[in-house]
């Protein structure tokens, strides 16, 4: 049963030359869209060099990338959630909560296992598990309870934030000194001249890229974010995939927390404040659409680096006060999104 519908091939062929010509010009446009965030990053870097040549110093670059790793790793998880049409506002509070629990757990394990690698590994494992569970809760309540992700994660954000404050009794939880010494290299150590957090960031980005673009899970995220009904009618387990995006987000938050804790060795109610907004900003700057259906991992990576870079450049110059960091970030987010929308409008027929 192959021939009857293909009875008009001549029209197809006759139309082909125009197809290719137009295809070429559109390809150029799309390239600009894809590379837009990279171009912006380069421009920002150039500005940095012009303002202060120290910007290009190896120490400065390494420091900047290391700092962007937290937001970057969280933002890669957020890329999946947002692409599938969801939103997770709880990530910052979740990070603080995980950090708090992790510190308490490791401190109490010192008595049993001593301040050794076992203690650290157990803490790390627990925090991954905790992230997975927290994501699972967000996902289940959103999908099974049929409540908007905004509401659910706003709620869990409040819960985690207050839980960590409660655990710290309003103050700060501090990691045992002996444990801290063992755990330190996870943040401060480096391999082949590149710090561990940057390696983790890179690994998460590569895995995320493959997951989003070359697996069924990723493709289903796009489909669900574009139109949930179509996904359901395409035999996709919509609720399961959506829950999985939140669980992936939870794991990313846990990973970010694992490399964050050895930096300061403490957690409090103020840990991770506004991380959720920075993560979402990084995702959006990278070209992922907030309404879902379109996501880009490398864009997110660039977005996260850009956000840190803005702060870094302001540190290196006296022209603009460091306190205006948020202002500059805000302007750049709005401009980035505006430029993306403008290119959309042109590309549309």
């Amino acid at each position: 049963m192959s021939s009857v519908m293909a009875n008009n091939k001549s029209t197809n062929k006759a139309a082909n030359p125009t197809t290719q010509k137009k295809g070429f010009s559109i390809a150029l446009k799309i390239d600009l869209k894809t590379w837009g965030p990279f171009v912006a990053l380069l421009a920002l870097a150039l500005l940095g060099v012009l303002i202060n040549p120290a910007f290009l110093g190896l120490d400065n670059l390494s420091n900047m990338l290391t700092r962007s790793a937290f937001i970057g790793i969280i933002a890669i998880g957020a890329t999946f959630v947002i692409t599938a049409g969801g939103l997770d506002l709880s990530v910052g509070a979740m990070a603080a909560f995980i950090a708090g629990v992790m510190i308490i757990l490791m401190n109490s394990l010192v008595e049993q296992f001593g301040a050794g690698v076992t203690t650290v590994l157990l803490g790390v494992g627990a925090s991954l598990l905790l992230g997975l569970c927290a994501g699972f809760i967000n996902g289940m309540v959103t999908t099974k309870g049929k409540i908007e992700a905004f509401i659910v994660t706003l709620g869990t954000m409040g819960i985690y934030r207050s839980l960590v404050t409660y655990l710290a009794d309003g103050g700060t939880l501090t990691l045992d000194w002996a444990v801290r010494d063992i755990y330190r290299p996870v943040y401060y150590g480096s391999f082949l001249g590149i710090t561990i957090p940057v390696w983790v960031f890179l690994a998460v980005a590569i895995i995320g890229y493959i997951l989003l673009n070359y697996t069924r899970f990723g493709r289903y995220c796009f489909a669900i974010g574009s139109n949930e009904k179509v996904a359901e009618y395409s035999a996709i387990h919509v609720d399961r995939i959506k829950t999985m995006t939140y669980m992936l987000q939870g794991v990313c938050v846990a990973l970010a927390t694992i490399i964050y804790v050895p930096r300061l060795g403490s957690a409090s109610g103020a840990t991770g404040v506004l991380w959720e907004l920075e993560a979402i900003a990084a995702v959006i700057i990278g070209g992922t659409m907030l309404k879902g259906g379109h996501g880009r991992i490398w864009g997110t990576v660039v977005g996260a680096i850009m956000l840190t870079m803005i702060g870094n450049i302001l540190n290196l110059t006296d022209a603009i006060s460091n306190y205006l960091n948020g202002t500059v970030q805000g302007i750049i987010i709005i401009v980035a999104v505006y430029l993306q929308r403008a290119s959309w409008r042109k590309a549309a027929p």
Partner: protein
Amino acid sequence: MLLSARQICRSFGENQVLFDIDLDLQAGEVHALLGENGAGKSTLVKILAGYLRPTSGEVSVDGQHQHYRSSGEAEADGIVMIHQELALAEQLSVEENIFLGRELRRGLLLDRRTMRERSKEVLAELETDVDPRARVKDLSTSDQQMVEIAKAITRDVRVLIMDEPTATLTENEVSVLFALIGRLRQRGVAVLYISHKLREIEQIADHVTVLRDGHLVDSGPMAGRRKEELARLMVGREITEMYPPRTDIPTDAPVVLEARDMVVPGAVKQASFTLRRGEVLGFGGVVGAGRTALLEAVLGLRGKSAGQVLRNGQPVVLKNLRDAVHQRIAYLTEDRKGKGLVLNMDLRSNVTLLNLRAHCHPLIDRRLEEQAFQQAIQRFDIRLRTATRTAAELSGGNQQKLLLAKVMSIDPEIVIINEPTRGIDVGTKHQIYHFIRELTEAGCSVILISSEMGELIGLSHRVAVMCAGVLTGVLEGEQINEHEIMQYASGIKGVGVDEQRYG
């Protein structure tokens, strides 16, 4: 002459869809505009109502040339269009919708009381019991249509354009609508009525204009015309040629799918049917009779409160569409834009979405996907005229073929097809009919839900008819004709209707 259009042409890009159309509307007449899907009816009325501008040609109202730049300007002259897809603010109340954009005020504040009273008056005139305070979201489609009409009447309508107003109405509602059109006619309103239901046209039209492929084929008084003649004018050929001859089913053909006593709360009451190998089982009935609900419940897309599904005689539990796919059952939804295709996704990914597993090992193999897509283009004759990237850019007919390619990617044994030819051109219809025949020839079984009587009669071996959630009967052989199907669809004949309705 109230409104007249002269030599209207309209092109979209290189594609001309209207060629030199003349149309005259007189006060107090019902003018029917006929034509197949894609004939250009909607484009023409959008030009008259100011939504689109003609590429060339003139529209004049009361003898004055008009160049409307928006529908608002046309409305100011009393030319109002009621859309096929209703355009109401769902979260607002009925009265708020009726006065939307022209709210009555007392000083700075809204004059709610007067608006409510006027809404009540208008709704009473329409003989509908819609509450002016009800939220539009909570109304049935037919009630929403009444609200649209009420909205038009309060705007001192002189020309009322209705685009397929009865598509979603029950028979009773249709007669209320026709009585209303009669009263509007007496008030001197010109009604331009688009439909391809010829029996309705016979009932109410004074004047009829037929379009085919963007050309005016005929225009003249309705009196003395027969609907067969109009049908021929619309299609341009004898309709019987549209359908390929049916395949013969051996008498001992096994039953491949059976549904027993299916109950879907609020939609289907105890429906049972069987499907044999190589058979086309048609499902007839009016919109809302429960056909889609029944079959989606069989597929696991909707919850059922009772009932059993048997595949090749074995009971199976289908909890979602994935289970149905495992049973080699494919479903072509009637809502290809809302449920069928991911419009902003590229074509290739759309084709492989249902059966993505087959293109993974374990990562997605883009080359394999591209191969599948090229095969789909060939097999289903999908025509890519421009640099088409996303499904949204395809025409309705090509979207339908793309959806067909997607659904067929699982190589099903049973295909459930829901309204396969809604909103697509005659040529594609023809191809789809032949495709269904090919399927049955290859031993597949097809369930065809259709509101087009011709399709049911032309393609089905048996026709199951539903009315108000009850499967009233299954017609075979000589019984499959328009008259019989209508009788079962309206509950005049058949089993169980009375007890279900009044019980």
